[in-house]
């Protein structure tokens, strides 16, 4: 798919995207099961998502794994036509330690399921001996699932987040 980027008023884009986002989300929550493809278009803005037909089963140890059954929430960044790639990836623990979703107890989590992330954005912390090791996203994507509860111990390289990468075209 080729993306056509048109000059638009940023405010209008934002509004339109919000609407598209809501609509897509509603569609997804009402659909019986995970659809194979969702396409929402409103004027110049369109969001299209396509999921692979996957076997259910364990995530493999490879960094890029087949998409889990959990349904992602559709949305799109500014002024682009996007597709979700056919693979989802994982953000893994950079260190053995305790996983925290927020910078401190009671604070707002760095990210929640459905949030968009970009490369370098902090999504959590692993604490090892008072050493706070930030966990960062390494690509554009959307948090599909948070795999470990706040305060749980994790091994090195343990999957923490499932991310649906977004290819910014």
């Amino acid at each position, binding site marked *: 798919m080729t993306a056509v980027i048109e000059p638009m008023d940023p405010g209008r884009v934002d509004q339109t995207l919000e609407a598209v986002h809501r609509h897509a989300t509603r569609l997804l929550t009402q659909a019986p099961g995970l659809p194979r493809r969702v396409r929402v278009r409103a004027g110049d803005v369109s969001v299209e998502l396509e999921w692979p037909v996957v076997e259910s089963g364990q995530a493999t140890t490879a960094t890029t794994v087949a998409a889990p059954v959990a349904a992602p929430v559709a949305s799109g960044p500014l002024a682009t036509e996007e597709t979700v790639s056919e693979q989802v990836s994982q953000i893994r623990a950079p*260190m*053995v*330690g*305790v996983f925290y979703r927020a910078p401190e107890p009671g604070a707002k989590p760095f990210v929640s399921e459905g949030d968009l992330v970009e490369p370098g954005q902090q999504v959590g912390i692993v604490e*090892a*001996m008072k*050493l706070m090791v930030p966990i960062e996203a390494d690509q554009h994507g959307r948090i599909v699932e948070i795999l470990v509860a706040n305060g749980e*111990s994790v*091994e*090195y*390289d*343990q999957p923490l987040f499932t991310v649906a990468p977004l290819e910014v075209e």
Partner: protein
Amino acid sequence: MFRRVLIANRGEIALRVARACRELGVETVAVYSTEDADSAVVRYADQAVRIGPGPARRSYSNIPAIIEAARLSGADAIHPGYGFLSEDPDFAEVCEAEGFVFIGPPASVLARLGDKSDARAQMAAAGLPMLPGTPEPVESVEEAEAAAANIGFPLIIKAVAGGGGRGMRIVETPEDLADAFAQTRADALALFGDGRVYLERYLRSARHVEIQILADQYGNAVSLGARDCSVQRRRQKLVEETPPPGVPASVVEEMGKDAVRGALAVDYVGAGTFEFLVDDENRYYFMEINCRIQVEHPVTEMVTGVDLVAEQLRIAAGEPLSLRQEDIVPRGAAIECRVNAEDPARGFIPTPGRLERFHTPAGPFVRVDTHAEPGYRIPPTYDPLLAKVIVWGPDRDTAIRRMARALGEFQIEGPGVRNTVDFLSRVLRDERFRTGVHRTNLVDTLFAESEAD
């Protein structure tokens, strides 16, 4: 005794420690890097925690990772094995601070003995024999002559700033001293911009002999005989044995007493090794203390019947030594050969790869400590030790014949994988080794002779 011990190491020693734990009814936690995910100890241990990627800095030498793994797994003590963090005072201190028993000497002892010159000073103070020399630089010929009278000949004049064999001169007789002193100072000034030199006894040929000790937390210490580790290549030991050939039992006994005295002087706790150089007149000189279990510990186990790793665990758990010096009666002779995944024909470069065939020696009085097995992939990341073959015999000749038999049974095959078995067999056949007259230069000599062929 502990309930659960985390083993902060890999390879054969991790498995060795896990076996000792199991025999004592202690649960084991293995830690592993991504390189070692399919290793034997990971399967053997009751739990396994992945602590980091291949590089040791981020896994086996990564203090926070290991402490977190201990916490995560509910361990109450940590065995550091050898290498990695085993002699790191910071690690020992962190273990203590975080509530885990470090199975080794206290952090303070590690710190004191980790500084080699400090350790020598302490051992000298404890009365251990030191290689004669001038601790401070020598400023004049007169001073040098006075020092040489104490040191004896041959001696070596070394530039304080020197190293790598440059800026040093061996002096055979008193007549040569004045000239050599002047020349070495001149050389040193020219080479390093620093003309200071010092004098030390020169050992033309020496044996590397070490004493194994055990010390508990209550001021009891025993020595468990000596090991000869003279078959070395670039300070890497290849063959170790006990008792040391050619060193009279009375000398070994004196070394043992010195080591125990030294250990008690620094409040040593745990298993430790006192390294000495032994000259041709069987005079010995303290070199350093290794504050850990050593690769070559099995030869001592074979002749004494003492499970050194189990003793480490008991001592760390606060038990008093159950062994008295008179209980330790070495019997016969034991030899260890280190089988490395290295290519002796190419300067002992490591040859990682997958083992298609791995058939270890067995039978009477043969022990093989290894983490490898058929299908094992030797990672390129760590030291190339593949297996230790240890044999016992009632005497050294029998042990040598047994080792030759055992090495002959070893089958190691894999694409690109080479090993040191044939080289070790050659050492065993060498007349100098067989008669026990070899010194630390044997391996270099063997290579020089190969090239001359």
